[in-house]
């Protein structure tokens, strides 16, 4: 530890910290643009200059390591003056098009100007003209006039993805970000550039001109698209009174998590969010004599419970089939295990996940669900599917359907359905499968539930519900609890598990892996 003084406050900080980090650790903000914690300091924007007692010049907060006894000022008149100058330089050649810039409201340059600048522009010369709409790759647009040449984008591609598509061409004031002709940004992490760019120079085609960032709320969640289970934010529109928006969710962003995904997410996860709204199942549907009609939750669940009970009493639970997937939370999988593996013996449990895709040796895994590890740790023991020996007839088939990604689950399940007398489907989406079952229940997506998952590296993440579920959709956790209680085999156990947190507590008492994790 070293003792230093920042703005008159004496503090002890860890050795080897930079002034920027030290200040941050005690809540003092030092404006900075080129510095990003994912990279070594670059020292090029010069915005983070601070005064160190005894040094003739201002020094960079982003790269200067604290030393015992240092006295630092981040607010002296000299520092403020230097900061204003750097901002004045940055804005001199910067277009004044904030009103039509996607980054407005979320732009570091704009924020710092409000906070530390607020001068009138003295720049009377001709601004440099540069291209304002360069396609950097399939997802990104670059406005060179807005670029402040912090080179975060270049460094990300060089150091993080190691694909290195972007570079700085020309020099001096004519310097500009570009790619080699015919070799634009083309990797599964390109979307991060729009987030990383501190200004509105790189924008996301998907988000361009869609809305203003200040209308959006951000809900923390996790990405359900692969076993990395990256931490994300879901940005959604709270809506205006009396105005019908054609969109609810506007974008997915990376949520910092040094354990799992640092500051990044992959494009597969980022741009795959239409499923949150498109073709959602919202109503209970009951099929009678080939006709589907809206049904009601409670009576249909009761109907299912009754049927299960009947076979339980007849000791014929081996005639029940349950289809699960690993995009369910730990809490849900735990309840499923309790009911279908412990309370009811001999149920045929099948795990049917989406087919594997291609991984990319970084974040994206071949497996396309977020909680395969959780399922294993909880101790669910599904049968092989498709089964080795011919299936016996099933009286009841209960299906929890995974996210439809192109391939319809119906094909995978056809053989099971053909052997079942009564089938129910829990699904968040309207799919062809709906027409093949007796009852359809609308369920929620990970983004709409509170719970936890365990990723491919056995890292546990808890998350709250980010979005409100549509229609009458209920979470699988609620559904399973109702089943558990309704069956009455272990009524008091399920009765006390009112919240996801209560389920988690129970789970961690049972399974050592979950113990000690908060």
């Amino acid at each position, binding site marked *: 530890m070293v003792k230093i003084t920042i703005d008159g406050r004496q503090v002890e900080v860890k050795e080897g910290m930079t002034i920027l980090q030290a200040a941050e650790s005690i809540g003092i903000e030092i404006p900075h643009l080129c510095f990003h914690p994912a990279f070594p300091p670059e020292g090029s924007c010069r915005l983070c200059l601070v005064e160190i007692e005894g040094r003739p010049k201002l020094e960079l907060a982003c790269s200067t390591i604290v030393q015992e006894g240092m006295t630092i000022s981040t607010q002296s008149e000299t520092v403020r003056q230097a900061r204003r100058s750097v901002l004045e330089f940055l804005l001199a050649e910067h277009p004044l098009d904030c009103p039509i810039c996607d980054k407005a409201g979320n732009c570091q340059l704009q924020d710092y100007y409000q906070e530390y600048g607020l001068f009138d522009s003295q720049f009377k010369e001709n601004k440099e003209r540069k291209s304002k709409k360069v396609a950097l790759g399939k997802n990104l647009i670059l406005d060179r006039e807005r670029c402040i040449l912090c080179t975060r984008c270049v460094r990300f591609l060089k150091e993080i993805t190691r694909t290195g598509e972007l570079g700085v*061409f020309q*020099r001096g004031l004519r310097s500009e970000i570009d790619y080699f002709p015919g*070799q634009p940004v083309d990797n599964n992490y390109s979307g991060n550039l729009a987030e990383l760019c501190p200004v509105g120079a790189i924008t996301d085609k998907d988000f361009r001109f869609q809305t203003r960032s200040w209308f959006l709320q951000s809900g923390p969640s996790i990405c359900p698209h692969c076993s990395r289970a990256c931490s994300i934010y879901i940005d959604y529109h709270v809506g205006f009174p009396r105005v019908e928006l054609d969109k609810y969710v506007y974008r997915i962003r990376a949520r910092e998590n040094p354990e799992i995904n640092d500051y990044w997410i992959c494009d597969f996860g980022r741009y795959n969010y239409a499923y949150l709204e498109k073709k959602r199942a919202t109503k209970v549907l009951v099929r009678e004599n080939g006709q589907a009609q809206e049904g009601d939750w409670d009576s249909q669940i009761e109907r299912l419970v009754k049927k299960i009970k009947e076979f339980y009493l007849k000791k014929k639970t081996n005639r029940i089939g349950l289809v699960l997937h690993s995009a369910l939370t730990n809490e849900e999988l735990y309840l499923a295990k309790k009911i279908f593996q412990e309370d009811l013996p001999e149920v045929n449990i099948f795990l049917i996940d989406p087919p594997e895709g291609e991984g990319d040796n970084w974040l994206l895994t071949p497996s396309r669900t977020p909680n395969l590890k959780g399922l294993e740790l909880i101790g669910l023991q599904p049968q092989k599917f498709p089964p080795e020996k011919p299936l016996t007839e099933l009286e009841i088939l209960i299906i929890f359907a995974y996210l439809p990604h192109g391939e319809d689950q119906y094909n995978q399940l056809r053989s099971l359905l053909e052997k079942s007398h009564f089938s129910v489907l829990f699904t968040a989406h309207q799919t062809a499968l709906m027409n093949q079952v007796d009852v359809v229940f609308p369920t929620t997506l990970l983004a709409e539930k509170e719970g936890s998952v365990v990723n491919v590296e056995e890292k546990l993440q808890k998350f709250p519900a980010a979005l409100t579920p549509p229609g009458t959709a209920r979470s699988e956790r609620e559904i399973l609890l109702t089943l558990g209680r309704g069956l009455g085999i272990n009524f008091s156990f399920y009765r006390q598990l009112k919240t996801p947190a209560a389920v988690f507590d129970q789970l961690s008492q049972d399974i050592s892996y979950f113990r000690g994790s908060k």
Partner: protein
Amino acid sequence: MMDLSPETRKKITQLTAKYPQKQAALLPVLHLIQNEMGYIPQEAEIWVAELLGLQPVRVKEVITFYTMFLEKPIGRYHLQVCTNLSCTLAGAEHILNYLIKKLGIKPGETTADGRFTLTTVECLGACEQAPCMMINFDYYGNLTPEKIDEILDGLE
């Protein structure tokens, strides 16, 4: 495939072996290519990149940084007139204007017959002979209009 003479290729091979890291040979290799081809075409950028284990974008970053590397062909004689201080003090402006009139081109342009390209440059390190210019790699100092006539007449 790149059209380079066997001599240049040989020199390039020798060069790359000299440096502890391949990329360090980038500037010298680019000089060799430009000497032979007159400029550095895009296919050469790709070729060099592969030779040195780089991405083409790294090569282009470098080429666009240094003023001596040319991305487009220019005239046979590259007249580079110094307009920095010592030369300005010695009348570089008159020299430049004389050339502009004589050749009928502005700085940055090439004569229609492709013989001359005129550019202005910063200090050439020959201020004791101001005003001065370079034609390709040859220095010419203490320039006067008469001397310029003589020099240009002496070129093929």
